[in-house]
């Protein structure tokens, strides 16, 4: 495992930086939020991402992908995170995409992955029911036999990323007969499925999903609990990369302000109390970069054991969620009054950091899992 970028990876990172930046960074999210935009992201940009091949970066070429890995996708996500881009790359390519890619169903793979890569399908995974992640996962949603080899799904899911826009929702439900968890590929417009948009603090698109006897063919089941664990860990690593981008941008913004803002006749960045706090944030951000790079490369190792993947995912999420929160708290503080205004961009990072920390489990949860994995 090499913790350095190769030439191709550098190119991807540079072009990702350019693509997101050209769109006007946080300004874009602000406009979508203020307009109460029903889509919540840019379809035009989504098509462009498809053209660049990024929606299928980690899928094999025969399925419309580029044949690269989580490592490369994380570079794109990191750059997206810098500008708080709400395009559902993580939900589509890393959550649902991983479920399809690594799942049991060839049919589902060949049906959906080329369409995801082409930008025709927004996809997500509906797994969460409780406010906090728990283990074993609480899952009251059930899959009930509906005759003719079909199953019907009943229950409710919350915090489903891009749930109201998704054309494909991979639903986690418990088989009523066996008690086993299953992942079921469900079209977003299936009968009996209702998506209610959730307006969350970060303004990223998200929904509550109600399943009232949604009937699917039995081959809609693409995997079970093990698949779900892997999917959540891969997506967790992607989210950590996004968080790395977010904290870096909030930090850069703060450094700019420290150089520019003057009080007592000097730039506030010359005050040692602030310099040392900035230096400590820098150290923590660099440590985050190392764990994110290592986690992504681990995810790309062929046949990586689930426990090893879980361990690096927890390392990456524990560190990045905590550091992101600390960076944005300090960023607002060092901006002073202007940092409290809605007009300033820094508050968007503060809000996003809070959501990131509560998405796949917060730092405390991941430390607890680390210890469990290590047997203590």
């Amino acid at each position, binding site marked *: 495992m*090499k*913790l*350095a970028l*190769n030439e191709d990876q550098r190119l991807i990172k540079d072009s990702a930086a350019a693509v997101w930046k050209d769109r006007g960074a946080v300004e874009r999210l602000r406009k979508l939020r203020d307009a109460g935009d029903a889509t919540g992201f840019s379809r035009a940009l989504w098509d462009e991402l498809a053209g660049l091949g990024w929606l299928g970066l980690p899928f094999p070429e025969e399925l419309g992908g580029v044949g690269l890995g989580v490592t490369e996708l994380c570079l794109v996500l990191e750059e997206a995170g810098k500008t708080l881009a709400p395009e559902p790359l993580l939900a589509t390519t890393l959550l649902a995409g991983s479920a399809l890619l690594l799942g049991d169903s060839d049919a589902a793979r060949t049906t959906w992955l080329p369409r995801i890569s082409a930008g025709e399908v927004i996809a997500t995974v509906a797994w969460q029911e409780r406010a906090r992640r728990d283990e074993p996962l609480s899952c009251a949603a059930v899959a009930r036999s509906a005759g003719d080899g079909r199953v019907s799904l009943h229950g409710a899911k919350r915090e489903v990323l891009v749930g109201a826009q998704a054309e494909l929702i991979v639903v986690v439900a418990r088989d009523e007969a066996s008690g086993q968890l299953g992942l079921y590929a469900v079209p977003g417009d299936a009968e009996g499925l209702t998506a209610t948009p959730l307006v969350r603090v970060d303004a990223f698109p998200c929904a509550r999903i109600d399943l009232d006897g949604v009937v699917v063919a039995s081959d809609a089941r693409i995997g079970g609990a093990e698949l779900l664990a892997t999917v959540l860990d891969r997506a967790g690593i992607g989210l950590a990369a996004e968080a790395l981008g977010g904290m870096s941008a909030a930090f850069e913004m703060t*450094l700019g302000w*420290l*150089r520019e803002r003057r009080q*007592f006749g*000097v*730039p*506030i*960045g*010359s*005050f*040692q109390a*602030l*310099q*040392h706090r*900035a*230096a*400590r944030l*820098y*150290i923590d951000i*660099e*440590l*985050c*970069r*190392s*764990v994110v*790079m*290592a986690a992504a490369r681990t995810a790309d190792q062929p046949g990586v054991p689930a426990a090893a993947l879980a361990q690096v995912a927890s*390392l990456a999420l*524990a*560190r990045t969620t905590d550091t992101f929160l600390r960076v944005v708290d300090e960023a607002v503080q060092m901006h002073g009054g202007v940092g409290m205004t809605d007009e300033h961009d820094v508050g968007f990072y503060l809000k996003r950091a809070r959501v990131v920390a509560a998405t796949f489990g917060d730092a*405390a949860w991941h*430390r*607890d899992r*680390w*210890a*469990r994995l*290590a*047997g*203590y």
Partner: protein
Amino acid sequence: MSDLDGFRAEVRAWLEEHAPISLRGRPGDIFHGHWGGRRGGFESPDHERWLRLMVERGWTAPTWPTEYGGGGLSRAQDAVLQSELRRLRLPPPLIGFGLVMIGPTLLEYGTEAQKREHLPPIIRGEIRWCQGYSEPGSGSDLASLQMRAEKNGDGYVLNGQKIWTSYADESDWIFCLVRTDPAAKKQSGISFVLVDMDQPGVTTRPIKLISGASPFCEVFFDDVKALARDVVGGENNGWTVAKALLRHERTMVGEVFARSVMGAEAELLGLAREALGPAEGTLADPLLRDRIVQSAMDERAFMLTIQRIQDAAKTGQPPGTESSILKVYGTELNQRRRELAVTLAGADGLGWEGESYASGHLALTRDWLRSRGNTIEGGTSEIQLNIIAKHVLGLPDGGAR
């Protein structure tokens, strides 16, 4: 088979044949091993044989040029050699400030004559060096140093005092920062001079640390002589050399702490199980358990950062700014670990000496106390943060404090 694979095979075969059996499985580190010098005895005849064997191949200083007795290895070959030494868990044949501080600095700034005179005895472990930077009035503000060196014929006469000089009482030579031009402003009047300590007028007095040991000293200079040819980098140009050496020192310190933090989780967990039980399953105290995880995660993140810096260097990328964080983070990480270790041990971690305490527990107490110095020696954490703020983050100078 690539060249490196061939080199690895050769090294492995040579070590298997020659490395003393009694030393295998006894790894040391940069602070635990044979320090060399005129007064340095050997722990055992095998330690002496091990040094002689490695000196013959130049592998006490593997990357230094062969004309001075070094091994002439590339960095990649050195990495292979180190990994083969680790494979047999062999101690380094020789350690000391000659190898990690003054040697690299002479390679960078020394004249050909200085290299020929001073590098071979370092490589052979014949001369032990110490670092005469700090003075009673000049620590963080090192450039304010007062020790004088006055021109006298073909050399200098030195008067003044150094303090906190690690191992001065066991060293043969000292590299000193001295003031050669009192009229010049601070940094510009300083010279970097090499001084033989075996002469009249040099007095060392050990200082006892809170951990009980006395590894460092006051050093007094009373009309001590230094030769003009022993000034490194030119008269009044010592500050440049001093800073270069500090870079070598901080790299070394970062690497030391990288290695010393390895295995934190296992050590802490062992102590926790001993004190808290049960032997299997979840630790009884959830808060201490969380602190152990934090320590383990911090360690992993730190090791990965070191790897990232090394990998970037290997691919020929210019050295990034990341290495500036190693000294601050590595030392604080070690402190947190030592603190957690005594915390977990409870009353077992309180012993100072005596038969009533296990030697492992006594070491916990001493190591915890000694670790407090990590964030002071080699430049305090505050000074490192100043450097990061100004030189890495580009924050402005000169604000109200």
